[in-house]
């Protein structure tokens, strides 16, 4: 018989606001830039990780959501065998454009190594793995929109085959105009069953 899995916790970041399990826990003025919002949120959730400031926006977004979720779980992530499964639409386009700008003029050709290293979307998975010392399965997919059906099947496959005991899943999208993170943890314990319909509802909350 198929073992059920659950969405134990979920975090959303949108429009300068962060919610945990449906409850808003931090909100900034709507006109605040992501740079200021991310800094304010970093302080609010009491992160202490100077490398955060060196990251690209996509990694910052993924890390802020992950930190909030992990803190709420009150566990030691490296002991939990947590696989990572993230997705978005624009890949690392925000950083790609910054890099492209730095090499567009041959008379002013100064590509930044610190920018270049973030010109792949799955780097944010690496940043999460480094921060929480995870040596687990990870995958990043680029889709037109959040795909609850795919995410459900992929996460369950990782769990059913014993590749992981938990899976941190979600959607982290950053462009110059907007940003959005929806991160959730699939686990053996929980109330909300890991089903596509549930995810659709939580994502739209």
């Amino acid at each position, binding site marked *: 018989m198929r073992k059920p899995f659950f969405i134990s916790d979920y975090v959303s970041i949108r429009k300068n606001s962060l919610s945990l399990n449906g409850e808003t826990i931090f909100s900034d003025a709507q006109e605040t830039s992501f740079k200021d919002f991310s800094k304010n949120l970093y302080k609010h959730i009491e992160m202490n990780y*100077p490398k955060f400031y060196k990251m690209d926006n996509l990694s910052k977004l993924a890390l802020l959501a992950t930190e909030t979720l992990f803190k709420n779980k009150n566990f030691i992530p490296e002991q939990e065998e947590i696989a990572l499964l993230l997705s978005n639409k624009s890949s690392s386009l925000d950083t790609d454009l910054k890099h492209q700008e730095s090499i567009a003029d041959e008379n002013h050709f100064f*590509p*930044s*190594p*610190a920018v270049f290293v973030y010109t792949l979307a799955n780097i944010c998975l690496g940043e999460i793995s480094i921060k929480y010392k995870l040596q687990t399965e990870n995958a990043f997919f680029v889709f037109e929109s959040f795909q609850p059906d795919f995410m459900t099947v992929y996460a369950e496959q990782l769990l059913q085959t014993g590749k992981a005991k938990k899976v941190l899943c979600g959607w982290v999208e950053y462009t110059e105009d907007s940003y959005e993170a929806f991160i959730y943890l699939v686990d053996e314990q929980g109330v909300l069953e890991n089903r596509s319909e549930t995810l659709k509802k939580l994502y739209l909350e």
Partner: protein
Amino acid sequence: MENLKHELKTKIIEALNLEDIAIEDINDDDPLFGDGLGLDSIDALELIVLMDKDYGIKLTDPKEGKTIFQSINTMAAYITEHRSK
């Protein structure tokens, strides 16, 4: 030389996104790597770009960097001697 050291500290903080560090926190002879500012290998590459972009100094030998980037003092001395900008 003192102006250059102050300028270097400002540029390093900005270029390397050292958000929690102020100019006053960096002593002229503090090691930039290791136990000092704790910079990493990507930061070293950023410093090489900074030397080229702002002072017209092209560093091609990585071994040179190890000596030049020891501290603000060593950087300022090298820039004063070799700058073309």
